[in-house]
């Protein structure tokens, strides 16, 4: 079995490598565009995937409503920006306040969702919590749709086109550049939070063993809430950035983005923060090449196929640890 896998893998890589090299040589600019587009896409996935992977690491639940938190972040930014725009405020002030409001509100929603839909089910079967999560996702989508509109709303980019970047803008726009830079900064901050702060240590302890963590005096409920809040904050940043990039949003954007980000998290090994980032980049870049070189209409099919293949051949993902179920 093993050598068949290896041989198949080598043949596949070889063919892909040969074909890829030919494509790169024939049109390097297109290749570069796709690569950078993929990294941008991957960065957004990473910002959302972090929330999935952190929540999963700590309470082993797929937080289905996470995509909606991201959507609410983008929506809040849109609303705040529109109102302030109407009042004729300075665009830089608007941009900053919109982002701040988006983050604050996403965090508040993430926190509330956890308290309503997941906390009472802490000791229930996992299936119950998952269905509750699906219900929450459905509720939030329809809440935003009914309170606002089912239509797509144009989103005026909060990020200006940087003048100094103009010579390179045909390869990668200022917005895309900002997405990549912001993502890197968020990742570093998050890394510091998890590695060095008290709450980060408490999170890691809770993820490993809830009961033991509680016995050592860690307030587990508080840690779980914090995890939701942190995950929601990164999702909100992702939401605002993608809205700037795409230029329009509606109540439904969270669903597919959430799914893709979840796929990315699984790809990297759910529960692992570096895994989520790696998985997101892998998914983003490969999607970008797939749609660029093959069929763009089958983009989602491609993403799901990757998920299925990964789960079948490496169920714990690229960086995930293989765990044996305890008997």
């Amino acid at each position, binding site marked *: 079995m093993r050598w068949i896998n290896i041989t198949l893998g080598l043949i596949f890589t070889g063919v892909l490598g040969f074909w890829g090299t030919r494509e790169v040589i024939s049109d390097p600019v297109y290749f570069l565009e796709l690569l950078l587009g993929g990294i941008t896409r991957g960065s957004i996935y990473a910002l959302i995937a972090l929330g999935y992977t952190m929540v999963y690491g700590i309470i082993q*639940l*797929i937080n289905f409503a996470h995509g909606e938190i991201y959507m609410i972040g983008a929506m809040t930014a849109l*609303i*705040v920006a*529109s*109102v302030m725009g*109407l009042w004729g405020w300075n665009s830089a002030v608007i941009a900053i306040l919109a982002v701040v409001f988006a983050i604050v*509100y996403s965090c*508040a*929603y993430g926190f*509330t969702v956890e308290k309503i*839909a997941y906390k*009472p*089910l802490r000791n*229930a*079967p*996992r*299936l*119950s*919590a*998952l*269905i*509750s999560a*699906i*219900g*929450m*996702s*459905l*509720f*939030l*989508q*329809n*809440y*935003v749709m*009914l*309170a*606002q*509109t089912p*239509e797509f*709303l*144009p989103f*005026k980019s909060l990020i200006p086109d940087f003048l100094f970047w103009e010579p390179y803008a045909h390869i990668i726009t200022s917005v895309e550049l900002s997405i990549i830079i912001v993502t890197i900064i968020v990742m570093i901050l998050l890394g510091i939070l998890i590695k060095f702060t008290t709450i980060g240590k408490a999170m890691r302890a809770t993820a490993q063993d809830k009961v033991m963590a509680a016995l050592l005096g860690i307030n587990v409920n508080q840690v779980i809430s914090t995890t939701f809040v942190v995950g929601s904050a990164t999702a909100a940043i992702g939401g605002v950035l993608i809205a700037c990039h795409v230029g329009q949003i509606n109540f439904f954007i969270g*669903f597919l983005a959430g*799914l893709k980000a*979840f*796929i990315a998290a*699984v790809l990297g090994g759910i529960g692992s923060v570096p895994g989520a980032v790696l998985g997101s980049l892998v998914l983003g870049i490969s999607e970008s090449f797939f749609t660029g070189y093959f*069929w763009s*209409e*089958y983009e*989602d*099919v491609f*993403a*799901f196929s990757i*998920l*299925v293949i990964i*789960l*079948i051949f490496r*169920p714990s993902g690229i960086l995930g640890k293989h765990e044996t179920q305890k*008997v």
Partner: protein
Amino acid sequence: MVTKKEIKQAFFIALWFMVLTFPIMVIKVNTIKNIVIFRWNYLFWIGIGTFFAALTWNYFLQLKENKQKTETSDDIPLVHKLLQNARFKIPFLIVLAIFFLVYPFIFPMYHTSIMISALVYVMLGLGLNIVVGLAGLLDLGYVAFYCVGAYAYALLNLHFGVSFWLALPISAVLGFLFGTLLGYPVLRLRGDYLAIVTLGFGEIIRIIMENWDSFSNGPRGIANIPPPSLFNIDLNQHNTVIYIYFIVIALVLMTIFFVARLEDSRIGRAWIALRDDEIACQAMGISKVKTKLTAFALGATWASIGGVVFAAKTSYINPMSFTIWESITILSVVVIGGMGSAIGVIAGAFVLILLPEYLRAVAEYRMLVFGALQVIVMVFKPEGLIKGVRKIYKFKKVEE
């Protein structure tokens, strides 16, 4: 009853929600026309609403906790108690039978048509109940098999003139095969991974139908799908609907009958064992692979039959009828009705499909309510509206 502390708590929760929902509920923006509307009255209603909601929520949560502490044995739902009582059961079934028999003749076509949808959902719900309720496999892509059935009939009819009656068994077999085919790669996946992958499969099938123009006619769909034929008699539209109604009634009865038999068979017990404890189930000599595959395949069979009926009833299908929301609606029927409980699923289908149809005012809130109900049911009544009971075996005094 309500303490001061609770009122204070509810007050703060209401305040919290007023702040929380402020941007989305109060400010309505339209960036196309650049209009911003403030709806301050919503703020007031949110405050009042969440205040009382918080009080009720806490009250029931406490009730549930107290119940968990005091009660260990569980009570049998009222419906089951009544149905176990022969004096009640027979008249009840007779009344029910008469109601469904005369229904299409009393009510206008529109109502019969709605009833047909509800009955199709009963079928789909019972089929999904095998997978989710009995075998415990959360399938979020159930609509894929529904889609397979509908397209199988539409395409077979379009190209080969296959009739409804022939399409029914063909799609059933096709559904069975597809169920096995899709079930196979996901065998090793546990609960939540399975949910995502099946969701993916459901979406893949829909996207393929949308894009593979030469095969499925793409997003334009397939029109003029003929209704079922009755010995070459020409039926007018109303009579066709009545005819389909009785076909669906027959199919639903068949489904109830077969599902009940499956539930109390060797296979049904294996499903429940798998749901309750996968490792112990295997250690008791049950093949995980076989058990999961039969659950998937049989569930898919019913979805596929439901698809044929759907295509015949609407006479037009396109990929938009088979989105993830359809899967979630069917799942809601099962979950809210009561996982693993046939009566619950039937009740769930009627409540969830008929209510929004008749309460037109709330129709647009349908998905909102589904979502909220899923959360509420899971938090307060995880076993659903009517939970399942197991068969009682009677033993005569065993002869020595």
